[in-house]
């Protein structure tokens, strides 16, 4: 059961990574990227690393997304 | 002061100095430059004491937090770490050179952050060469790379930002490679201390160990700009501010090579793999780099672009010396790391002084500059002679040793490549010197230009003098690194 | 005592099933609904009703204790943050000029008038 959960999460992770590359809309890519961080956070927690999970949630899903959004609002939204 | 405290101080003092620069610099940033200079002078003094110590008693360590390795982090100062002194010297001179540059070219808000980044970059390199812990190595590599990217872009021009972006992408990939390799080594040995890894790697699985050294090599070769991975270098080094170019070309590129030496220390010591295949690849790539870098440099109009290509060529020499894995070759390579730093800094700072005064970067525009800026051009000429490898200068002995190493390793073919490369280099430096002295100026105002300001002239002249002195006293560094190279190659039975 | 436990367990199962059902509906809505507003609406349902009832079910399973307190705090946070997020999204979309979707027949009718 736990193994199946792990594998599902890892597959989701890969899917997210591919989706980030494929998305042309940068805003969408940022949203998917924060989803990636969230899944990563779950994996850390599940592997028994709550400290890292917490960092991932706060930095990966929180602060970096905000920074990306500012950067996008300063530049262009669509990838050329 | 015990040596271990000095060893910590040589990292911590510039680090805290860097961190405090924005606070000390004030709103105008005017105090930032002198502050950075003072910090680097103190650091240089410590570095000198360390070198005297290592020459007397041999390699020594400091344990951080009092935890003995492998539980804590170990700093280890050996003969290769003596490049700290070059880092401090070039750092001090580049900061001095930056005074006028920053005043003229940078928006006042950026000045104090410019010096912060310079100091952080130097700190990263010092930490990189003295640490004995492989993850600590990565941390310092991050500091020096991050600050390097920003320093390339600091002038705020569009081209500079593009060059920095290219550098950033390549650098991020290389950092990732190195991190991946560190992870592999940790999975194999359960340790992060270099000496400990070397012991424990002996019984490890071969395939992951091979993958780890491959990843290390690719990662460090991007940093060192070896032939197929050099594409970021010409833009980044040519467009960066001149003092930054001197540091990037003279030192940052060398950290990749020193990292390679560290990895060789681990692997040769463990004797887990036969590295001769990797060495062959490195020698060939080095030879291609030598010829290719020198060849492209001939066609460059932009003086700094030419110097940047010549860096690729010289990295080729060093890699070739390392890859030959013979006593002479490695000694020559290790000392060329040091000498090329001096020479390339002379050239970049000299070119920077000319660009500062005239505003021109192309050789055609700079015709006749030798008449109005005699001292600067004289220094550049000395640098040019050294880099070609003329006998009385710093470049000669190293290249001679590397060529000897090729013969010693039974591959005299590569000595031919080396001579061939030197010929190309000769062609373009002669072209440069010819432009400076013997051609009629395109722009008449070139003849009216004043000699470079003292804070720029002084570093350039000091470095040029060192190029000559190192040529005459060249045996000293050679015999200094010899015990370290002997220790490195001992497991090979050579 | 056994009967109480059994009832509680049954309630938990029912609540969790309701939650799962709402999540399912919400996901289907996300995929099938025609425009931004209706999809936001569907997604917000997942968070509030779906997650809310699952958390309620878990509380019943745990009984009184530190964990239940945490679950209550979690529910409160969820009930506050999720509608707010939905509101902010919809409002931003509306303010920047995204028109709500109309069914084709409806639009035709409008055109006729």
């Amino acid at each position: 059961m736990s193994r199946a959960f792990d594998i599902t999460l890892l597959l989701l992770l890969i899917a997210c990574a591919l989706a980030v590359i494929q998305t042309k809309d940068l805003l969408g890519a940022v949203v998917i990227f924060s989803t990636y961080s969230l899944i990563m956070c779950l994996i850390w927690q599940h592997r028994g690393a709550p400290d890292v999970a917490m960092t991932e949630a706060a930095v990966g899903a929180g602060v970096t997304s905000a920074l990306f959004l500012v950067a996008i609002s300063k530049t262009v939204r669509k990838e050329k | 002061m015990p040596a271990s405290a000095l060893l910590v101080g040589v990292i911590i003092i510039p680090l805290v100095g860097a961190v405090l620069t924005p606070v000390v610099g004030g709103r105008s940033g005017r105090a930032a430059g002198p502050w950075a200079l003072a910090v680097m002078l103190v650091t240089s003094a410590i570095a000198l004491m360390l070198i005297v110590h290592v020459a007397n008693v041999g390699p020594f360590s400091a344990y951080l937090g009092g935890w003995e390795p492998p539980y804590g982090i170990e700093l280890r100062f050996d003969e290769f770490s003596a490049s700290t002194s070059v880092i401090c010297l070039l750092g001090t001179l580049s900061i001095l050179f930056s005074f006028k540059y920053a005043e003229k070219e940078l928006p006042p808000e950026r000045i104090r952050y410019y010096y912060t980044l310079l100091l952080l970059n130097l700190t990263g390199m010092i930490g990189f060469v003295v640490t004995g812990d492989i993850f600590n190595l990565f941390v310092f590599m991050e500091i020096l790379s991050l600050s390097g990217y920003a320093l390339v872009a600091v002038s705020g021009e569009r081209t500079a930002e593009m060059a920095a972006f290219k550098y950033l992408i390549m650098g991020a990939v290389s950092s990732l490679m190195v991190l991946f390799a560190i992870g592999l080594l940790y999975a194999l040995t359960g340790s992060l201390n270099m000496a400990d890894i070397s012991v424990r790697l002996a019984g490890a699985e071969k395939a992951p160990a091979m993958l780890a050294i491959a990843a290390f090599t690719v990662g460090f070769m991007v940093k060192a700009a070896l032939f197929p991975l050099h594409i970021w270098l010409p833009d980044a080094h040519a467009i960066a501010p001149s003092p930054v170019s001197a540091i990037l070309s003279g030192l940052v590129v060398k950290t990749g090579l020193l990292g390679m030496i560290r990895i060789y220390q681990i692997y040769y010591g463990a004797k887990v793999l036969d590295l001769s295949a990797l060495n062959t690849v490195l020698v060939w790539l080095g030879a291609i780099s030598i010829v290719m870098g020198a060849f492209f440099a001939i066609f460059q109009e932009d003086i700094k672009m030419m110097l940047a290509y010549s860096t690729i060529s010289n990295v080729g020499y060093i890699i070739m010396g390392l890859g030959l894995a013979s006593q002479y070759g490695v000694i020559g390579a290790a000392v060329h790391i040091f000498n090329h730093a001096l020479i390339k800094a002379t050239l970049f700072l000299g070119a920077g002084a000319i660009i500062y005064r005239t505003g021109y970067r192309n050789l055609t525009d700079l015709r006749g500059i030798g008449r109005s800026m005699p001292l600067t051009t004289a220094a550049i000429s000395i640098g040019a002679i050294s880099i070609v490898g003329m006998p009385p200068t710093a470049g000669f002995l190293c290249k001679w040793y590397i060529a000897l190493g090729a013969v010693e390793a039974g591959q005299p073919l590569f000595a031919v490549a080396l001579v061939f490369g030197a010929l190309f280099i000769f062609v373009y430096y002669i072209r440069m010197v010819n432009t400076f002295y013997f051609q009629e100026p395109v722009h008449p105002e070139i003849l009216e230009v004043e000699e470079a300001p003292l804070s720029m002239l002084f570093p350039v002249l000091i470095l040029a003098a060192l190029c000559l002195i190192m040529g005459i006293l060249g045996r000293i560094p050679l015999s200094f690194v010899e015990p370290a190279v002997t220790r490195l190659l001992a497991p090979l039975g050579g | 005592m056994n009967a109480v436990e059994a009832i509680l367990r049954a309630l938990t199962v029912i609540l969790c099933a309701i939650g799962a059902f709402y999540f399912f509906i919400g996901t289907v809505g996300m995929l099938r609904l025609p425009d931004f507003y209706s999809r936001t609406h569907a997604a917000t349902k997942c968070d509030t009703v779906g997650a809310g009832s699952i958390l309620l079910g878990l509380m019943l399973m745990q009984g009184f204790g530190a964990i239940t307190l945490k679950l209550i705090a979690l529910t409160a946070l969820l009930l506050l943050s999720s509608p707010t997020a939905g509101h902010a999204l919809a409002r931003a979309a509306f303010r920047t000029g995204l028109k709500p979707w109309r069914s084709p027949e409806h639009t035709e009718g409008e055109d006729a008038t």
Partner: protein
Amino acid sequence: MKRALTVALLVVVAIPLLYAVAQLPQHGSPMTPPYTHISPRYLEKGPEEAGAENIVTDVILNYRGFDTNGEVTVIFTSLAAVCAVLLGSRKGDERPAGEPSSSAVPVSDVVSFVVRLLSPLIAIFAVYVMLFGHISPGGGFQSGAILAALVIVTTVIVGRKQAEALVPVRIRRLLQVAAPLTFFVVGVSGLFLFGDYLAYPKTEGQMWLATAWLIVIGIGIGVGGAAVLASIFWTMGDDS
């Protein structure tokens, strides 16, 4: 064509990678070197000799404290990089036409109210994470990130001017260097008191002092990290 080449290259790179990784010691097995070499010492002796119940904190702040010292410097470097690249006048700053600078949507009252309601709770949580890093999961980095997120949300709600007014520039500049400076102060006092940089007291009776120092470093990292991240956000959002 290009796509096919990319895929082919990926496959060529992936095969040796997979082969080598398959040769690694079984991941997660208790017999592998990472579990048998250094970790047992950390796990067995950490709480008594390093001063924190949370082993992770022991490792990152005590055994390998110098790495963390380097890492906080990396964070500070990123701030210096952002400032060096973005501050000051930019020659030829061009924004593509037709791209609105920022949507002029005023902040909703509902959102504003909820954020105001929640922000004290977030602050309390961040402080809790900061102060109890030596017992429970968490510590300086995490609380710094949470605090920074709080500052960013507040900036969005009340506007940048008002948010920045809470922390005057002079103080902010000191806060930004708080993390490396704390390390420096603790490290140097360790050098003078116990003979090594970043050394903590190791004897039985003085463990409370080691714990106290871990907390001090945690506070330093938390405050410094939050200041750096918030400053990066403000610098990037600069409309000059």
